[in-house]
């Protein structure tokens, strides 16, 4: 775990993650059948993770939308069959919304409270392990002794705790995958296969 990794994560937390809900909404607005906003978001984050430096990014939100757009474009180009309404969709993508996001401020300032609420909502054992690790800074090994469970189980609890936070912060609590479920028609799988084939 290098210092640079850590800096990238902090940058990401502050400048990117707060825009995730807005990006997801934007991607979902005119979704293409074979494009799941959550796939696009992960892939866009990969691009951000691989950047040499983020210092030159002055407008992280705009940059994030632009990167997401490039991911969508790449998928559309690869797809053998481009649905007609994809054209409209791409038009939309030409104009990433640039309204200031009210979430930015809300998330920043509310972060600790949100975090406390998120931790409180975790399943009890997971919560116990997570609090020991994160609030009290106890190593996983000691948590295992304290809770009388195996180290592997502790690791599982920590993993679940993190997944919980992904849902909580990225997808707005229980609203997870509503977007993809409600907007992804049955043909999704067929198109998905098309995309996979075209990838090679």
């Amino acid at each position: 775990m290098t210092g640079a990794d850590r800096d990238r994560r902090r940058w990401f937390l502050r400048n990117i993650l707060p825009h995730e809900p807005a990006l997801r909404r934007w991607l979902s607005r005119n979704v293409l059948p074979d494009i799941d906003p959550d796939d696009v978001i992960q892939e866009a984050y990969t691009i951000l993770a691989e950047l040499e430096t983020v210092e030159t990014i002055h407008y992280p939100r705009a940059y994030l939308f632009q990167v997401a757009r490039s991911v969508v474009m790449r998928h559309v180009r690869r797809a053998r069959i481009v649905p007609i309404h994809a054209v409209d969709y791409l038009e939309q993508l030409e104009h990433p919304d640039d309204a200031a996001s009210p979430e930015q401020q809300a998330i920043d300032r509310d972060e600790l409270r949100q975090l406390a609420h998120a931790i409180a909502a975790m399943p009890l054992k997971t919560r116990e392990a997570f609090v020991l690790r994160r609030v009290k800074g106890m190593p996983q090994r000691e948590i295992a002794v304290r809770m009388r469970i195996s180290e592997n189980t502790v690791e599982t609890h920590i993993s679940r705790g993190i997944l919980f936070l992904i849902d909580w912060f990225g997808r707005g609590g229980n609203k997870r995958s509503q977007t993809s479920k409600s907007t992804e028609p049955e043909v999704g799988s067929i198109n998905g296969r098309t995309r996979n084939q075209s990838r090679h």
Partner: protein
Amino acid sequence: MAARETSRDIDRAASDWTARLDRGPLTPEAEEAFQAWLRGDPRRKGALLRAQALATMSESAQALGSGFDPAVFEEPKRSRLGPLSRRQALTWTGAAAAAASLAAVGVGMPAAGAVISTEQGEIRLVPLEDGSTVHLNTASSVRVRYDKGERLVTLLKGEAYFSVARDDRRPFVVEVNGCRLRTAQAGFRVRKLDRSPVDVLVNQGQVDVAERTRQASVNVAALGANTRLVLSHPPNQGSAAEHPHPIAPEAVDRELAWREGKLAFEGETLGQAADAFARYSRTRIQIGDPDLAREPVTGLFAANDPIGFSRAVARVFDARLEEDGEKLVLTRRPTPRKMNFF
């Protein structure tokens, strides 16, 4: 070929790897598996970045203090009934037991009245002989004088929360700045700080407020649950300021969070929050520029941990924190704000 992994599957695997890395260094085989996993799909590295970023962020939970009790933050539907009310009962018993051990210290009730005080940064729960309790906040003191007619407590300075055991024949009276707050049974907070008017907050039961004049005492208000009254100062003039106003139950909880050793903010300015911390320790939080001092703060913090608070603030507002002995100085980073997208 197996079905394409969903983004959810990837998030799960990313969380697993994050937890694995958090446990300790990877073995060479695990490292290899990890790298192979990262290469296997263009979404994975991004998912890992998000999972690790959130894991990093959760470290700021330390700012909640070691006394952080997640149960306090549970959604009401879980906390109203069932196991949690038992837990709350336990917490209370624990506090009462702690208080019982304190009881030996100085509540002998001599005729002149026993004075109970706290030092700066100290919070005490003291049981009184009738089963009522008084919770003293930092740097506070009260004098207790019970007789056959009434249970009289005088707030000399600071802040106290009274939980009054019912006794219809012997009212409980808190005297503060010439006002008498009288009840048969209630839970209420009274605050008397330098340079601020007396502030009364009732969270259960009813409290009658009277002003004592030379002739008699005159009732000014009856406060029910979840009401607040700021007493004009000096009393007896312009009772216009003395209208009680209702206050939301959540706001009451925040106002009383100090009883758990915490400070709760919801949109108070950073300047106000710094003042709130100043009551609890000699450490002072100084805010370098007025803009920053006006930023709203939200969150629950350990009252005795101004450093943890300042670090959290520095991170949230992208401010610079300098620690200089008992002085914590927060300043904006030199980067002009317009460089931000907003």
